Every structure is written in structure tokens, then in C-alpha cells.
């Protein structure tokens, strides 16, 4: 099957999967309890509760509530977030942009370091660089994110004062427009290098704390994959032809070693996006993860629904992209087979 046909077929199935997911998730969240609590306070009287129920249609049967929700979604209304005290549609893009920017920064850290370290170690198997890289990898994979993040926070924010927390300097944040919500991109668009520096500076600690764990996984995958490739016949053939070791590594072995690594990277990005919860809380990063943690703790079902739907669609697309990239890198793979 051609890649185009395969992609089209997958895209056509997408709405069915999304609707199915929404029904399941909506039912599960409502079965778990009414969302009315998020709109109430300790002192609200039963009569006041009735008024709130009417405002949000929570006095209707479950299927009717779903219809209200689905109708709202189709009209661009994802409901009211009790946690954010604002419409979900208003807050979601801001949170998503914040988390995306952090996830991308973390991915840059993870991919560059992971592939670099993996290649470095794989090409020097069982030598000192390999052992050092293994220690780095194991520590990254096994160290709890919250502990590493707090360590970075204490050393680099509290004691050294090198890096700030939060997303930006409020004074700098206020002086530029935010057409994309990605502060680094917005700063470039505005041509404000002070703002760019500020945005990057705020990214450093959370991106390292999140990216370190993924770095370790990618490096281990790259290393083992590279070692396998370096033992293949085509590598020996390349060496026999007199190709320098550097070119054997870069042009032949590394390209093939990247195939399984790409799968890990693709899946890691989804987890990076989701796994920002701890870092967002610790570094006061106003992203999806922190918002969602609050929403789950407080039973903010409108927000939970939006987030679950988003991540469902995200994973469907990520898997699709991974499949396509996989097929591109490995010509033996037949899409749709």
C-alpha cells in the first residue's frame, strides 16, 4: 500500500476512534461521580446546588449530558473548567503551548544527548566511555523525576541562583505579543532577543529534569542497536572496501541503528508531553500536566474530558507518524500489511 493511501485510511478511522473514546471516557468519569462537586463550596446550600446543576445541565440523564457535551464540542465549547475558572477552550491552547514548548525542549535534550551518548558508547563498546555512559544512562532511567527536579531546583535556583523557575520574567513576558503561545518562537517573531534569552533560560531546568530520563532510554536503545549493526556483514563489507571507520559509523551503521530508536523517540515524546506533571508542579510551569493533576484531584470532569480526548488523538497521530517514519527508514516494512 502507498504511504498516502495508508495515511488516508488511518485518518478516516480516526473520527470513529475519537467518538468511541469520548463515549467510554465520558461514561467512566460520570460513573465515578457527579462533576457537581467542583462547582460547590463547603457552605453551599442544597437549594444553591440545584441552581448550579441546572446551569451545567447536570440534572439531566447521562445520555442527555453527553449530547450536551458533544454538541458543545462541535460548537467549539469544551465546557467550563472549575480548576482554571475559565472555559476549557480558552485555557487549553495556553496550557498546551506551555507543555509543548517544554516537551519539545525536553525532547531536544533527550534526542541530542541520547543519540549522541548512545552512538558514543556503542562505537566504544566495553571501553571507558561506554562504562561512563552506562552509569549516566542507568542513573537517568532510575532516578525519580521529582527527586532530580528538586535537586536541580535547590542547587541552581535556590543556592546558585543561575536559573529561574516559572515560565518567564513577568516584565519581559508582558512586552511581547504571543501569537503562538510558544515563548521562544514568539520572542523570535518579535525580534526580541532579551525575551528569547529569558524564555530559554526558564526552560533549562525543567527541560533537563524531564529530558534526562528519556535521554537514558534513548541512549541505551541507540547503543545496543548500534552494536548490533556494527556486527552486521554490510559493515564488514564497508570496512573491507576501505571506508574510514567514521564514515562506516555515520553513513551505514548509525542510520540503521536509528530505526528502532525512532520508535522509542516517538513514544517518548508522547510520554514527555504527559510526563511533565511533576516538573510543571516543581518548576511552576503553567502547562497541561499541572492543570490536569489539579483537575483529577478535584474532579474537574470538563478538563479531564478535554485532556483525554486530546491525548487520544495525539497518540493516534504519533503512532501514525512513527509508522510512516519507520516505513521510510526500513524499506522492508509494508504499510497496511
Amino acid at each position: 500500500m502507498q504511504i498516502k493511501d495508508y495515511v488516508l485510511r488511518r485518518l478516516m478511522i480516526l473520527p470513529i476512534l475519537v467518538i468511541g473514546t469520548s463515549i467510554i471516557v465520558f461514561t467512566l468519569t460520570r460513573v465515578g461521580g457527579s462533576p457537581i462537586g467542583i462547582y460547590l463550596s463547603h457552605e453551599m446550600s442544597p437549594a444553591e446546588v440545584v441552581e448550579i446543576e441546572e446551569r451545567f445541565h447536570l440534572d439531566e440523564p447521562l445520555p442527555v449530558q453527553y449530547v450536551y457535551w458533544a454538541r458543545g464540542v462541535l460548537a467549539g465549547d469544551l465546557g467550563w473548567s472549575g480548576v482554571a475558572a475559565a472555559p476549557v477552550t480558552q485555557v487549553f491552547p495556553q496550557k498546551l503551548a506551555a507543555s509543548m514548548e517544554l516537551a519539545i525542549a525536553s525532547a531536544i535534550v533527550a534526542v541530542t544527548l541520547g543519540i549522541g551518548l548512545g552512538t558514543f558508547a556503542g562505537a566504544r563498546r566495553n571501553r571507558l566511555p561506554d562504562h561512563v555512559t552506562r552509569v549516566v544512562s542507568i542513573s537517568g532511567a532510575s532516578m525519580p523525576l521529582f527527586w532530580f527536579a528538586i535537586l536541580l531546583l535547590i542547587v541552581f535556583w535556590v543556592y546558585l541562583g543561575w536559573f529561574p523557575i516559572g515560565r518567564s520574567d513577568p516584565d519581559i513576558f508582558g512586552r511581547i505579543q504571543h501569537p503562538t503561545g510558544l515563548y521562544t518562537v514568539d520572542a523570535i517573531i518579535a525580534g526580541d532577543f532579551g525575551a528569547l534569552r529569558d524564555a530559554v533560560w526558564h526552560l533549562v531546568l525543567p527541560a533537563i529534569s524531564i529530558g534526562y530520563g528519556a535521554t537514558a532510554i534513548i541512549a541505551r536503545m541507540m547503543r545496543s542497536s548500534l552494536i548490533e549493526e556494527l556486527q552486521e556483514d554490510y559493515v564488514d563489507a564497508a570496512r573491507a572496501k576501505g571506508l574510514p571507520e567514521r564514515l562506516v559509523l555515520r553513513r551505514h551503521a548509525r542510520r540503521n541503528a536509528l530505526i528502532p530508536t525512532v520508535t522509542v523517540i516517538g513514544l517518548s515524546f508522547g510520554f514527555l508531553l504527559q510526563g511533565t506533571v511533576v516538573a510543571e508542579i516543581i518548576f511552576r510551569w503553567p502547562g497541561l500536566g499541572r492543570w490536569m493533576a489539579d483537575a483529577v484531584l478535584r474532579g474537574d470532569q470538563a478538563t479531564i474530558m478535554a485532556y483525554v480526548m486530546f491525548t487520544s488523538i495525539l497518540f493516534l497521530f504519533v503512532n501514525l507518524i512513527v509508522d510512516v517514519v519507520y516505513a521510510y527508514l526500513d524499506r522492508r516494512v509494508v504499510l497496511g500489511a
Partner: protein
Amino acid sequence: MPTRNRGSRKARGWFALLIVFALVVAACSSSDDSSDTTTPGATDTTAAGGGDPSDVQNPGVFVHAADDEPTTLDPAQVEPGEGGETMILQVYERLLEIAPVGPDLVPSISTEVPTLDNGLISADGLTFTFPIRQDVVFHDGSPLTAQDVKYSWDRVMTMDLPESAADLLNDTVVETRVVDEFTFEVVLQERSASFLRAVVTSMVASVVSEDAVEANGGIVAGEPNEFMSTNMVGTGPYKFVVWNRNENLQFEIFEDYWGTPANLDLRVEIGSDPDVRVLGLRAGNFDMIETDPSFIGDLEGADGVVIYSGGLLLEPIHIGFNLNMPEDELPDEDTISGDFFNDPRIRQAFNYAYDYNAFLEGALGGFGDFNPHYIPIGVFGYDPTAPLYDKQDLAKAEELFRAAGVWDEGFTVSVITEEANLFETAALVLKDSIEGLNPNFTIRVLAVAEAQFDDAHASDPVPYAMWVKNADPFADPDAYLQAYAHPDGEWGVVHGFRNGYQDPDRIAELIDEGAQELDADRRAEIYAELQRLLYEDPMWLITAQEGIANAHRDWVEGFVLNPLWPRPNVKFALFDK
């Protein structure tokens, strides 16, 4: 071995690169002297403060790290005790305010505090007149007149949002009038001794700009106004700038403020993890943080940190008894009868059995005090000579349980509360106290998510026999007694107080009399009598009144805190550094 040599050179290169990176980072963090004023470690050599001036960070702006995000910035929508009240206090003003020190009322938008003596309260006590200050302008530049006051109050009463404190006005006010451009009058349904303190100074009575509201959606009955929920146009010393959700709220000094202007701009950082707030205060990035007694251990002895521990929160933590129980709907494990708590001996026995000291010294770390009844210490009418339950008396509890006929048979009762906070701890202390008294007694602590608790507690009838929570803060005793003691009050009806009071009519009569009594001495006598009656006939078990623990940097000048203001009980405009 050329390969090995090349590898060594590369390794040295990596090492050199790391060193260069570290040096660049260090250089960048220390070289910026002008543009990046909030980079941690930045200093302001020109700032003056209580500590070493060279240490003062974030010059020109007061940075407060708050616990949670406001749900609204609209006085017509905010709930008492909610985070939005803090912001409203800084930006909006009311006719009268509570003075920084003590409980006294002081003029604000009204130039005088109405009294019978100055003639601004009519002889029948029903009409209050407020002379309006003439040099007040809103943050949008429009002048404030009596019409704005009338509009603000009428708006709250018309919107009548269930989540708000609109009842304070709707249950009290018959009519609002504009007498002339700078005279506002309000007519009450009945004489009210608490009107000025409980209503006029409350956040719901804040004066908003009519122009701003009408230009942004106007007034719709029963519907929140989205613009006002997320924006503020007031007359106070701070002007609202921006609300970056989950990040911060920013305010700037209002240059045309009629009174004493604020000293610093204000930034309220929101939603920090408690540990991050503590670290941020220690590092000097925050000037003040939202605290409670559990923070104190982390901050004691920290350089440059001042811990203030004066005063008590006006939100007594209490355990409720349900006298209106739907027996069939109680948890299956509960073995009590539907009228279990109707017997005052049972309620007294629970009060005697509770280990107050364990809760105060343990959970509250000693920050707090025992409080007998629903008039908190610090509020007018609190009688320090009234008897109180403050010591565990197991012998007395046993005697009462035996007299009530439940000692031998025992009971199992569930108590619902929020999880992972002081309320859960209070419930666990109850469990420990009661179960330690008699092995036939079982207390099941159901600690649930806040939303789930609120849903259960707002049911009618409440499907649990007991619960733990705190009270909303009020500045006048009548609000507490109407809500928490009156047999025909909001909670009295839901929780069936008439099923339990030995003389409900006497309790009702006294509360109603206290509500209307304008003579302060007589009013105090009424509340003293009520506190004695409620000791004999307790409708609640009040575990403690939580103490205030505030932490701020030593460079903060002019620090003052009043428990009668919404949490964190401060007005930032009074501070400097």
C-alpha cells in the same frame, strides 16, 4: 594507536566544552545588570528595607506566593474564604473598611461610619445613610458617585449567584437609594446589629464601575459575567494588570488613588508546591508566602525569614452532628439509629471524649487555641469566661454514653471529610479518642476528594451522620450563629437542629434578638448567654481555632495582618521593602 589518541582528544574536547558551558552560564547569570530584574540572585543596591539593602530582591514589586488560583475576581461571584477574595480586597473598595489593627470600622468610600449618634442610622435602625467621598475615581478613569454604589449592590442582588455571598445582601436589604450624587442610602428588612461589619465590609459589597460592567455584558440574573470574573475595575490602591492563569496575577500602583498610595507594585504568584514556596522564600525570590502552621518547622531559623504567629483564623475547625439523618442512606457499616445525635448527652459525650490537646499540639503544632462555640476568638461577642470543651474527660464521656444507653451495645459511625488535610487529621483524632474509650465504639473515617465532600455536604439530607470541615470567616457573630446555631437557619434546617435542642425557641429568640440589638453591651450579654446554652446543648464539636502563621522576608516593612480581612489577612498596599 591513532584511534585511541583521537578518542582521548575528543574526550578532552567534551570536558573543555562542559567547562566553557559552565563558565558561560555563570557569566550570563552575573553579568546582566539592567534588563533581567527578576533573575534569581539579582540584587538592587538602591533598595532599602528591613534587612541588608543589598539583599533585597525584586525591587519595586512585592511578590507573594499564594496557595491556589482564584476561581473568580468578581465580587458578585466570589465565595467567602475563596482565593479571589484576596485579590478583591486589594483592588476594590467598600463603603467602610476594617482598620489594619483591631476590629474598628473606618471610613472608606463613605466618609463616615453611620451611627445612631451621628444620625446616619435612622431612629428605627432601618435606614443607613452613607456620605460618598467626592474625589474617588475608578481605575478606568471614571468618577465614582452614589449611583455606582447602588449599581454595585443591585447588581449582586439581581445576579444572585448561588456560589456567591449574595444572600448577605438579599437577606438584609429592602431597597437601595441614590439620595443625591454623593449620598447613598440603604433600607433594611429589619434592624441589624451586624449590617455594617458583616455586610458593608464584605467583599460582595465592593463597589464596581458601572461603566465597565455595562460595556462588558451588563447584568444578567443568575448568570456570571465573564469579563468581571477575569478583570477588575475598582478604586483601590492597586490596579489590576493581568491574570496569567496558573502563573501569576499582576497589579500596579494606582497613581490617582484618593488615599495613601501603595508603595510597590504587586505580583501574586499562584499554585506553587508548598515546598517550592518555602524554598522561594528562603532564596528571597518571594517576599511573602501563603503559610499555615505546617510550614513553620521548615522555616524556623532560616536566614532573612520572619515568622509571624499572632492571631487566629476565624474559621473554627469543627465536627458536625447530623440530627436529620436519612437512616436508609447512611453507609451500610453504620449501626447508629436515625436519632442517635438527637440526644444531647451523646453530643456532650463526644465533646468530652475528644483529645483537643493532641490536635492542637500535634496537627496544628501548637498554633491555635481552643474555642468553645461558634463565636470565634477575635470576633465581637466572644466571651472568654464561657465554659468550653478544651480537655479530654474520658470519665465524663463514659458517664454520658452510659446514661444515653449506648455504652454496652456500642456503635459504628462514619465521618466524612476531605482527604490529606487538617480535617482528616481532626477526624483521625476523633477516631483515636472514641475508640480508645470503648472497644465497642468504631469511627470510620471516610477521607474523600474535596469535590466529593462538597457534593455530599450540600445534599439535603446529608447522607452521613458526621463530617469535618471549617467555617466560613465572618466579621460579626450573627453570621456564625445564624448559620451554625439557629434552629431555623440555613444549616439548622438541613441538619435538623430542632430535633435536638432542649429549648430551640429560646436559642432562636436569643440569636434573633442579638441580630437586632444595636446596644453593644446588651448584645454582648445576649451572646454570653447563648454561649452558655450552647455549651450544655452543643450542636458541634469544635476541635480548635487554627492559628495564623505568616512567613515573610525581613526586608518587608510595615507588615500588619488582620484576621478580619480575607486570607492571607493582609493588604499589600501597606507594605514596603
